[in-house]
């Protein structure tokens, strides 16, 4: 019983992290029509930048949450710059854009290896959240519950932003029909930069938040990117609800798979994706066929 409760808590936690990662991925895909293959790299870069803040290598240590937000901002700026300087040059050429994001992902991975070395870095749980909460016979780590709370807060904030603000309405218009959005005077190319930065920032933030659980190691990007891909294929592109539900599903499958059939966990993870592709190519909540 304890085992199952813990596994469920872990699954939901991981789902929450995945949501932070894939919400941006899904929005970028929905708006720009490209899978941003640097998304895993942004997650990893965020995690590494976070370790620098916490290790005191800068001469001072930063509070965990402040560090996470700062890192998110840094990565957001990097993402926005990348969109402005590289992807903008290739406007309209989706294939070329995908290849550029792939190239940049290799550069980021090697940069992290250069800057932080090849050894995994573990990050301490932030102060005050090292304890446990009793759930019946099981003890759920407080920090994991905190991640769930953060993910839910971000989900609500993003939802409000998309549904209730002028900016959100513009993004939704861009996702639905970019040409028409341009015609009615929305500067879609500015939205690209904004959404790209937002997505990258969320991924970087998620990297810091996830680092006490996952630790930080080379190859983290390649572990996370396929998960984001699966979430978006499952949930449908450009749909916030889709990435939320998709993240939870993937979180459960990934954790239960690793606990029960560790050798095939990766394989089982992709089964629902294959099913969705065959039965419902537009994803569970997506409007457009992938």
């Amino acid at each position, binding site marked *: 019983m304890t085992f199952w409760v813990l596994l469920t808590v872990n699954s939901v936690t991981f789902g929450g992290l995945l949501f932070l990662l894939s919400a941006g991925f899904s929005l970028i895909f929905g708006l720009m029509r*490209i899978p941003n293959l640097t998304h895993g790299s942004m997650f990893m870069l965020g995690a590494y930048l976070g370790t620098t803040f916490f290790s005191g290598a800068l001469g001072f240590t930063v509070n965990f949450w402040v560090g996470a937000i700062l890192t998110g901002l840094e990565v957001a700026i990097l993402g926005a710059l990348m969109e402005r300087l590289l992807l903008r040059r290739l406007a309209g050429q989706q294939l070329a854009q995908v290849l550029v994001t792939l190239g940049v992902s290799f550069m980021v991975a090697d940069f992290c290896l250069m800057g932080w070395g090849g050894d995994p870095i573990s990050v301490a749980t932030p102060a005050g959240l090292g304890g446990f909460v009793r759930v019946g016979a099981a003890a759920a780590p407080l920090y994991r519950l905190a991640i769930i709370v953060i993910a839910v807060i971000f989900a609500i904030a993003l939802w409000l932003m998309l549904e209730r603000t002028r900016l959100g309405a513009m993004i939704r218009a861009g996702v639905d029909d970019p040409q028409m959005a341009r015609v009615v005077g929305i500067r879609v190319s500015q939205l690209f930069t904004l959404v790209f930065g937002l997505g990258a920032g969320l991924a970087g933030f998620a990297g810091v938040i996830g680092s006490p659980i996952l630790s930080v190691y080379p190859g983290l990007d390649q572990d996370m990117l396929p998960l984001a891909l699966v979430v978006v294929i499952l949930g449908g592109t450009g749909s916030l609800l889709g990435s939320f539900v998709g993240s939870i599903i993937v979180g459960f499958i990934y954790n239960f798979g690793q606990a029960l059939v560790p050798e095939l966990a990766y394989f089982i993870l992709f089964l629902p994706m294959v099913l969705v592709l065959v039965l419902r190519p537009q994803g569970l909540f997506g409007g457009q066929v992938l």
Partner: protein
Amino acid sequence: MIGRNLAIAAAIIALAAVPYAIREPYYVNVASQILLYAIFALGLNILVGYAGLVSLGHAGLFGVASYAVASLLAAGFGHTIAIVGALVVGLTFTAGFAALALRATGISFIMITLALGEILWGLAYRWISLTNGDNGINVSGRPKPFGIALTSANAFYDATLIIFLVAVAAVAIFVRSPFGATLCGTRDQPRRMNALGYHVWMIRFGAFMFSGLLTSVAGVLFVYYNEFISPQTLALTASAEALLMVISGGAGTLLGPIVGAALVVIMKNVVSAYVVRWNFMLGAIFVAIVIFMPEGLVPGAARLFRSAVRMMSRSKPVPVVERMS
């Protein structure tokens, strides 16, 4: 026509003479690598260049064939069974890949192939009882076709060259065949081809299978070349390298992938002796080529050559009639 045949014959003789010209076994091995990766790139080019479908999971298929050889040999089978078995396994996986990935085109096709490639990588990495995980599988000994041992660098180069020439000829025939023409049709005008009564999906499936066959052949050569296989062979980096070969050389040309393979393999072997950061270089070259030379080296060079020829001929007075045509 005669000039063309002469050029081909000269190229073959030059390729066969490579080991005698460079002598150093290390560089002969680099040449073998170029040839086997050229076969891989030719296979990927069928999809990328002629079908217009960019696959980012081909290293998965490449690796599946390699692992099949290694596992069959480890299970005690002979080389013939291992090689035939590996091609069958490779083609089976290709069919599965194609069935799933061809539900989409364009960007979605990239995503699906990427995800499928990552599954295969994950299996190779984590299914330790089958693949020995990160430790990989050692392969002892190369086959002896017709009693000729392939242990020396030169012998292996010659064997690879023969397979490479067969592959090039097969691709050349494929591209010039009616099937190749219809494949290009499905790339440029899928809806029109559909309206004309062509079964677009089936044509793409056929192209995928041919691509998978060449990829599997390259995978088999690779495992015999290295006598070792590990999950790294299936990683996304490997798929991206193969794609870089095709795109840098020039997708949709016969010569492009071969030039691209030579470029990447030489870069990787020579540059990595001086620069530790090969992956950083790979990424930077990728970005640079996509932005500055999207058409690739071979078409780019051909264009320069043509304009140079035009410049040269412009100095001669050209009759008006000829200029009109």
